[in-house]
């Protein structure tokens, strides 16, 4: 099988491609090829140039030098996604949907079906319904994108790309925001496409996934090509090591015992909002608390409600034993509670601004001296954040929107930590972050807890929850289904609660 594949000419190939943004070089003479019916994974650290290479391969960025070939013929790809007409489709790392439009409108955007000049809306709606049925998704074609959760948006993107009947499907971290269940559904689709002969290129920081689905793997480091080999020739550790360029020790830090007598810094009783019912739990000093569950189970809403971002219908919130109700994020911040959103593009960062204003925005009052912003202090904060979270930007003046996805996430983390919270809620902390940095972040979380800070981790990645949390709450349908501690924190237990197979109405 592998031999016959190798004999073919690649459908899409890059030869010694380099790319610079202005004076900043990002890719250095990288070669890459993609064959029909294979899944070729591209891995590398944050900022290695993966997204850039994908954009070059799909015509969104012109290469600075080097050659692109389609079916062996040298080509110049047309810009702005017009390469779709040649069968080359890209799913961007940043979600790329028109928020105010409906699912159906987005899926068919740019290639609407018309009859006699009028949109054939019934046909398109029906087609979308069928596609969703195929992948087992329950999203209405008429729903507005703005009303969907991030994972749902990502699935819409995937469905949109698959609907294009592409010869070459290039996907930039499609699984970063998906839970395992959705990832499974997604991979089933990928297998189908592969069987049809579609060439698939994809990026993921979840190396198990890479191992499970990819036929070949290419590794980039700092914009340089490092290796391309069949997946079987790599072990997980080898992949990680080649990416990062150093030996990786344990991904998860040793967990120090939680102090059961520690002060309860946050107590929630009977919290009820539009989508959540009667949620109660508590958080102790120095504890790392996990929140697990399926997409849309309401984890985010619990904490947005606590921080004053969502209306609360009823319930009691106590911080250090004192009852509070935050009217705004500022009040929550001043009380030492900060929430890090999972939606870095829409809610997290000002994409048009540089790193510095983004970095200090949440904690800005701390940087005011007299009447004015203390720019030196800001600069120090930025340097601190870059060091602490290993933010890699080749150009320090780069707009946040032009940072690589993973580095945006790191910038967001740094921004939250600048407010020096006592209780920090991190929604999907390692979304889009490479293994090397993941390790750093887990250690960082453990260190925070050791220093007496309390951390809530909301995550759809079960290993992460299992690896760093002292206690785990599992949510389903806006309710807490159960709490797990110690050895009970394992995948089967979590899944059973999350799927509703097991449930004790849990109260704090």
């Amino acid at each position: 099988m592998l031999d016959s594949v190798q004999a073919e000419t690649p459908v899409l190939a890059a030869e010694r491609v380099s790319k610079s943004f202005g004076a900043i070089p990002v890719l250095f003479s990288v070669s890459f090829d993609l064959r029909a019916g294979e899944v070729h994974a591209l891995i590398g650290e944050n900022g290695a140039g993966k997204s850039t290479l994908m954009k070059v391969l799909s015509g969104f960025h012109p290469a600075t030098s080097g050659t692109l070939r389609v079916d062996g013929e040298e080509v110049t790809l047309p810009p702005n996604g017009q390469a779709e007409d040649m069968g080359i489709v890209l799913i961007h790392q940043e979600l790329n949907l028109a928020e105010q439009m409906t699912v159906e409108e987005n899926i068919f955007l740019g290639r609407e079906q018309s009859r006699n000049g009028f949109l054939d809306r019934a046909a398109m709606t029906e087609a979308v319904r069928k596609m969703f049925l195929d992948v087992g998704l329950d999203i209405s074609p008429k729903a507005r994108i703005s009303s969907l959760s991030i994972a749902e948006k990502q699935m819409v993107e995937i469905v949109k790309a698959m609907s294009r009947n592409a010869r070459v499907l290039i996907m930039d971290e499609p699984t970063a925001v998906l839970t395992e269940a959705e990832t499974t559904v997604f991979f089933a689709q990928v297998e189908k496409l592969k069987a049809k002969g579609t060439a698939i290129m994809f990026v993921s920081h979840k190396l198990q996934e890479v191992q499970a689905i990819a036929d070949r793997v290419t590794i980039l480091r700092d914009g340089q090509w490092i290796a391309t080999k069949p997946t079987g020739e790599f072990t997980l550790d080898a992949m990680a090591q080649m990416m990062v360029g150093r030996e990786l020790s344990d991904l998860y830090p040793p967990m120090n015992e939680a102090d059961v007598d520690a002060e309860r810094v946050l107590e929630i009783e009977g919290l009820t909002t539009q989508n959540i019912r009667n949620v109660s739990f508590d958080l102790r000093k120095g504890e790392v608390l996990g929140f697990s569950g399926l997409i849309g189970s309401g984890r985010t809403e619990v904490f947005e409600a606590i921080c004053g971002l969502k209306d609360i219908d009823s319930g009691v919130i106590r911080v250090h034993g004192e009852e509070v109700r935050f009217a705004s994020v500022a009040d929550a911040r001043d009380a030492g509670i900060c929430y890090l959103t999972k939606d870095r593009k829409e809610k997290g960062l000002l994409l048009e601004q540089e790193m510095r204003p983004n970095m200090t925005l949440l904690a800005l009052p701390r940087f005011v001296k007299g009447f004015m912003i203390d720019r030196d202090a800001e600069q120090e904060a930025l340097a601190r954040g870059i060091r602490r979270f290993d933010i890699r930007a080749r150009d320090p003046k780069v707009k946040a929107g032009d940072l690589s996805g993973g580095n945006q996430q790191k910038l967001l983390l740094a921004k939250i930590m600048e407010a020096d919270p006592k209780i920090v809620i991190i929604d999907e902390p390692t979304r889009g972050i490479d293994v090397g940095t993941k390790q750093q972040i887990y250690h960082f979380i453990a260190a925070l807890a050791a220093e007496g800070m309390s951390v809530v981790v909301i995550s759809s990645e079960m290993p992460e929850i299992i690896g760093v949390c002292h206690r785990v709450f599992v949510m389903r349908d806006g309710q807490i289904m159960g709490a797990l501690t110690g050895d009970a924190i394992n995948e089967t237990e979590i899944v059973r609660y999350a799927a509703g197979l097991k449930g004790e109405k849990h109260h704090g």
Partner: protein
Amino acid sequence: MGPAIALLILCIIGFSLNSAFLSEGNITNLLTRSAFIGIIAVGATFVITAGGIDLSVGSMAAVIAGIMIIVMNNAVETLGTGVATVLLGCGCSVILGLGAGWVNGFLTTKGKIEAFIVTLGTMGIFRSLVTYFADGGTLSLDFDLRGTYRPVYYEAFFGLPIPVWVFIIVSIAGWILLNRTAFGRYCTAIGSNEAVARYSAIKVDRIKTWTYVIQGLCVALATIIYVPRLGSASSSTGVLWELEAIAAVIIGGTVLKGGYGRIGGTILGALILTTIGNILNFTDMISNYLNGTMQGLIIIVAVWLQRADWGRKSSKE
């Protein structure tokens, strides 16, 4: 829903002030008057949905009316005072509208100048051109020609004045174009997120230019039914129509920043604005000087009434 309720409330107020408000004659006047602003506002809905703005429409109407009159007056000698001359005038109007719209679109897209500036500039240019052509005064249509052209404004057709028919046709066409064609979706997509639209291989510049061209066409149509009304154009023709048109669009629920347009709402918005003026003429309870105050209050309240409808949507942005 919101704008419809606001309009209903206005009608009730109007009727309670004076039952003649609901007389056939007044309703006809009201509809006919709404036609100008309404037709222009339909065009503005496209421009605004695609994230643009056009401040030049009032002046554009004035200059088109002026040139139409000049052309028709000059054609009387060769073509006579018959329908041919009027058709020539209308053709001329349409060409000018398309051309003026294209200029606005071209400068905005290819010139990469903010739409606000481009159309503020052309607003001044058009306005001063009509003043220039009219020598500061009024351009009047040839008297005999007026007889030929007059029915276009004053005659009814199946019980409705012709301008109202034009309004209805433009509205339906606009609604279909915005809601039932790929073009309409492209407008929404561009207004919603230009980068997404561009990445979806939509020819952003071309579509944006088209929205201005449509706006120009709508202005031309409005002018064609405006000219036979009084048979004249001057530098005061169409003053502030741009604000009225934009207000109609926004009262109707379209979001000023783009990405969400409703033709139906726009039509209601135009009716609401005309009705406010009409009601104020129906009562002498309020000092004339305070007409503007009433107008302002009613507009704000009308939009506030329907806020529940779309407030969420716009605040999401």
